[in-house]
């Protein structure tokens, strides 16, 4: 049946034996997508594109990089000065890393707002959290590779998190380092894993997409498509809509790469690593700051580490914390207020994570950390019970047609 779709005889011959064209066709044309998606549904595609840019530029950078404590820093400087277009490739890699996180954070908040994590998309959501964790590990190890001061001390501090584990902590840290401090063996294994992880991410992305295509995209009003009148084909409607987002993304990325390449980095990382001296004020990359703030908010070593990891793991169980049957925040007036409070709370944590751990900042970090967990562990389960939601439209088409009539 599928084979007759193609007029090109070579395509037909291949497709009969290896149905890749049918598969692509199926995903492009037959895959029904709710017709009311807004631009927030661009961010999955944008994240995928960021991953591709990272892998391509990363492979190319690895051709010019030397993973050795004596040469890593100067090999990166050589990339910046001597390698043809090396400065461009490295700046794209650096800035796309940040853009990847911006895009993924928007993607996550999109999911939180429109209830995309709810049944039957729990696994889709959990796979997304896995991707987020893998991204954090990859980004952390990538930041170590230039072997500047921030690389070295970031690696030291983050690996030392594991020393908080009772009894075996110290042994684990020694194991991670391959020695008694962050040194050449550490750098070598980080380079190896930094190269491996993006491909693991790509694998989980495939699972993420398989899970997505099982029930299709959620949508701004959060009710299921009732039939063909509620959906349109992915191609050309959403491919073209995604291209608008891609163009914007690339435009902003180009602005960052060409005009503010180091705006999201830290100048101390242009000082070669010195194991004898810690910089006065060390901060992680901006995308880790909210979690860093939670870590520092707790006056106990093990407690801080546990709470920081808990801040991510709470997302895994989110589908079971928020029991409300209504997905979209549009029909949940109370939830919508708390969503924005959570959003502000996360921004505040990010801000506080970049401030020195002293005075008022410590207190504010504790309040913000408390609110974060209060939201997920108390408010969401309570809202599921006590919130009065607005009536849902009968179908995806109904509100669209109603507005259209109103305008006419």
């Amino acid at each position, binding site marked *: 049946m599928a084979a007759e779709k193609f007029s090109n005889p070579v395509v037909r011959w291949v497709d009969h034996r290896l149905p890749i064209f049918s598969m692509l066709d199926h995903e492009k*044309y*037959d895959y*029904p997508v709710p017709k009311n998606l807004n631009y927030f549904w661009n961010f999955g595609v944008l994240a995928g594109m960021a991953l591709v840019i990272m892998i*391509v*530029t990363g492979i*190319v950078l690895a*051709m*010019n990089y030397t993973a050795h404590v004596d040469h890593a820093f100067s090999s990166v400087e*050589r990339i910046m*000065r*001597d*390698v*043809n*277009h*090396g400065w*461009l*490739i490295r700046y794209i890699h650096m800035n796309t890393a940040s853009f990847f996180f911006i895009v993924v954070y928007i993607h996550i908040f999109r999911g939180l707002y429109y209830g995309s994590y709810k049944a039957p998309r729990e696994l889709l959501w959990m796979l997304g959290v896995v991707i987020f964790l893998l991204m954090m590990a990859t980004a952390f190890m990538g930041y170590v590779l230039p072997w500047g001061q921030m690389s070295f001390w970031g690696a030291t501090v983050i690996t030392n998190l594991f020393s908080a584990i009772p009894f075996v902590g110290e042994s684990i840290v020694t194991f991670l380092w391959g020695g008694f401090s962050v040194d050449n063996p550490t750098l070598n294994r980080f380079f190896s894993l930094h190269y491996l992880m993006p491909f693991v991410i790509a694998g989980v992305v495939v699972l993420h997409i398989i899970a997505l295509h099982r029930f299709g995209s959620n949508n701004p009003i959060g009710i299921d498509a009732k*039939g*063909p009148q509620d*959906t*349109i*084909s992915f191609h*050309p409607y959403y491919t073209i809509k995604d291209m608008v987002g891609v163009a914007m993304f690339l435009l902003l990325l180009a602005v960052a790469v060409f005009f503010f390449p180091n705006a999201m980095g830290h100048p101390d990382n242009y000082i070669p690593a010195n194991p004898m001296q810690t910089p006065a004020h060390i901060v992680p990359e901006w995308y880790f700051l909210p979690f860093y703030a939670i870590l520092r908010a707790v006056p106990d070593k093990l407690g801080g580490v546990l709470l920081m990891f808990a801040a991510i793991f709470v997302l895994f169980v989110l589908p079971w914390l928020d029991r409300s049957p209504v997905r979209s925040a549009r029909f949940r007036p109370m939830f919508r207020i708390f969503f924005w409070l959570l959003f502000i709370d996360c921004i505040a944590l990010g801000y506080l994570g970049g401030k020195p751990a002293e005075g008022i900042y410590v207190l504010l970090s504790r309040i913000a950390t408390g609110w974060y967990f209060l939201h997920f562990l108390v408010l969401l389960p309570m809202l599921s019970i006590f919130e009065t939601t607005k009536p849902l439209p009968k179908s995806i088409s109904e509100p669209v047609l109603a507005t259209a009539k109103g305008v006419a």
Partner: protein
Amino acid sequence: MANTNSKPGASDTDVRDPGRRDFIVVATYAMGAVGAAAVTWPLIDQMNPAADTLALASTEVDVSKIAEGQAITVTWRGKPVFIRHRTGDEIARANAIDSAELRHPEEDEIRVQKPELLVVVGVCTHLGCVPLGQKTGEVKGEYDGWFCPCHGSHYDTSGRIRKGPAPTNLEVPPYSFLSDSVIRIG
């Protein structure tokens, strides 16, 4: 359901002026292709020699210390260069042969700037091994020049291929005499 949605595009286009719509589509693809090519070029060009590699592309050598009949090996662009101070006998033998009979016909005199000083890249033109014959006691091949141990190519006292699989003579690198005693290769 699938059929109602399948392959919009051609049928959906503006029937009043299909040419204009086609132009937009083709122009978009063309723009995308140009953009993709422009982005791909830096990713490919980074594999070409970097500025610091190119900066190391010449080597200066003092040749006055090489005794007659002796040879030295220097490094130029990561490859060995053979510099041999030839004896009168070796020069005579290099000139004795009619070059037209050789696989790669070259007169000895066009391969040297001063007859006693032969400078060749010490890389066999077959598959890139370094031929033997620089050190005293090494096999020099049947023509008393160099012998490549990998696949048995014999070079003569002018570095020309005489026997074996190599297709061309040992390459003469560009070099110049900075003074009577110093040459710069590259």
